[in-house]
């Protein structure tokens, strides 16, 4: 992408941090590949939306955040939630509809949430979380907490009303929030270019909110991380929101039901070549990382996924009585006396 920022000229993180980014991408990838296998075995009942191929964005940002920062993501949010530190077994259990699931089975794949780790929810209505993230940032500012909110969303989301309302409010109130558009070129089955009035659905609209256009290679974890550090710092220092467009690609279809056949074969092949993980591995090796270290990360990630899978598969199904719990703060769901 000629019009994309690169890491050139900007400091990349040190090797340790980059190894951690690598580990995060690998964990995300293996977790989702396992999730896909479990779907194929019929163990995940609902739908699910994988971010395989897009991990550099989640990892690059996750590595730039503090523990009490707040992340808001979408139905395509497994990796974002995991990389905030949510327990893997509880995430897997949620996909499998078990009692030990992170949401007790009430959420499912599209609603993974772990508030204790600042994973503030996966939202399944396109765009809804953008004003919500702005609101969390407003509270951070009002309370003087130094937190930053980060809100991930897709290219297709740039055409819905909440995108516009949230960006304007965040800009006017100078809120500490970073909006990150994961532009994977498609909505469900329709190419974003077919239904959008500008070429870069987020970056070309930044100026409508008085913001700098930021368009980056979302498959380059270093670039993403550098951008994350910069925009998060801007937010934390009180200078207000940013809107980042990170171009990427999902390797598979939109959701479990979708083989993704509407995409030209060459396009898919080209993006598989640009898989963010192997290329990052190469780069780290070139930067002096030890092959053994990387292999160990891979092994550990796989072992973690294996353990989580086993734990989740052995977990009990929810007690049907829990159906009627946790509508209200009193733990119940009574609407009458």
């Amino acid at each position, binding site marked *: 992408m000629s019009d994309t920022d690169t890491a050139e000229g900007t400091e990349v993180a040190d090797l340790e941090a980059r190894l951690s980014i690598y580990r995060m991408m690998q964990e995300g990838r293996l977790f989702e590949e396992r999730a896909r296998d479990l779907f194929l075995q019929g163990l995940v009942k609902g*739908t699910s939306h994988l971010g395989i191929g897009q991990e550099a964005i989640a990892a690059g940002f996750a590595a730039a955040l503090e523990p009490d920062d707040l992340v808001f993501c979408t139905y395509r949010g497994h990796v974002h939630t995991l990389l905030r530190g949510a327990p893997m077994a509880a995430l897997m259990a949620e996909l499998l509809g078990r009692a030990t699931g992170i949401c007790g089975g009430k959420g499912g794949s599209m609603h993974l949430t772990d508030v204790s780790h600042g994973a503030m929810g996966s939202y399944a209505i396109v765009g809804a979380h953008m004003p919500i993230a702005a609101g969390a940032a407003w509270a951070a500012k009002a309370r003087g907490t130094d937190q930053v909110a980060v809100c991930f969303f897709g290219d297709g989301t740039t055409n819905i009303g909440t995108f516009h309302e949230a960006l304007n409010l965040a800009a006017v109130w100078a809120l500490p929030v970073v909006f990150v558009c994961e532009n994977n070129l498609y909505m*469900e089955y329709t190419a974003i270019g077919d239904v959008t009035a500008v070429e870069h659905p987020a970056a070309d609209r930044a100026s409508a909110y008085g913001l700098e256009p930021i368009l980056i290679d979302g498959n380059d974890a270093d670039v993403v991380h550098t951008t994350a550090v910069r925009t998060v710092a801007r937010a934390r220092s009180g200078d207000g929101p940013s809107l980042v467009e990170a171009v990427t690609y999902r390797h598979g279809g939109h959701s479990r039901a979708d083989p993704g056949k509407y995409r030209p074969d060459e396009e898919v092949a080209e993006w598989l070549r640009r898989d963010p993980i192997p290329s990052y591995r190469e780069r780290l090796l070139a930067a002096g990382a030890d092959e053994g270290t990387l292999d160990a990360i891979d092994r550990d990630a796989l072992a973690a996924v294996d353990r989580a899978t086993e734990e989740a598969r052995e977990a009990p199904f929810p007690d049907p009585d829990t159906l009627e719990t946790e509508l209200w703060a009193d733990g119940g769901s009574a609407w009458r006396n």
Partner: protein
Amino acid sequence: MAELTYREAVARGIAQEMERDPSVFFIGEDVAAAGGVFKTTEGLLDRFGPDRVRDTPISEQAIIGAAMGAAMNGLRPIAELMFSDFFAVCWDMVANQIAKARYMTNGQVALPIVIRTANGGGARFGAQHSQSVETWMMAIPGLKVVVPSTPLDMIGLLAAAVRDPDPVVVVEPKVLYASKGDVPDGEIVDELGVARAVREGGDVTICVLGAMVPKALEAAGRLADDGIDAEVLDVRSLVPLDVRAIADSVERTGHLVTVEENPRLCGWGAEIASIVADEKFYALDGPIVRVTTPHLPLPSADVLEDAAIPSVDRIVEGTRRSLG
């Protein structure tokens, strides 16, 4: 005669009407090239071309607003809302604009619009993709609402909706898409506002619609084993509502049960109950029982979702209780 799935019936119904009337257009998200995320509209793009079958951005307010504007200027648009939960993001267009325009202008504006939508639970999609929202529409003056429960009804009610001069919401229970039924060849056109007794019986009236119809029938079968002869009324059309059919049935049976997938409070069952508790009070021989989903969002896990949505067991039990 052919056996069609409910999903195929959607495409057949739309095609029938687009063929007949060149002013019928169809828009929605991923409906054209992809044939719809539920594969309900496959083949329409090829058959009618990109001018009449169009993919939209993810802009539900613009989709429904554009349908309204187009209807004001000579088209008869059919718009799809992929999941009925998304009525919430364009509720102003539906409830404040489309529903009110004719009345506010004293009849100057006619809005022959159809909005189709995949509704309800049972697919383990979680709270934001599983709602039953037919009551939302029913509560807004100026909207008509139908809920077909078979492939044949799907075609016939859709055709009636397209031909109707007023806005009609066609609610498609998503768990029915794979269900099958016989459909005669040739044009099929049904009528709005007509309920149908899918089982006749003299002991109790069960009002039901959509995905709950098969369950109510199964419950009636079980009750029959115990000598209770239930009449199962597929309400089919919430607005206009076939009050006559309901009242006549209760007049004969003396007992009423409503079965709905909605959360408990203020569902259409409450409306029917209140009508009967007023107009047929003296015919009633026992309490009116409403079987509903508890007043909760739908959970994702299958165990929990199954516990939430009315089951055959709960319909049987509710019906027994209505007998006093």
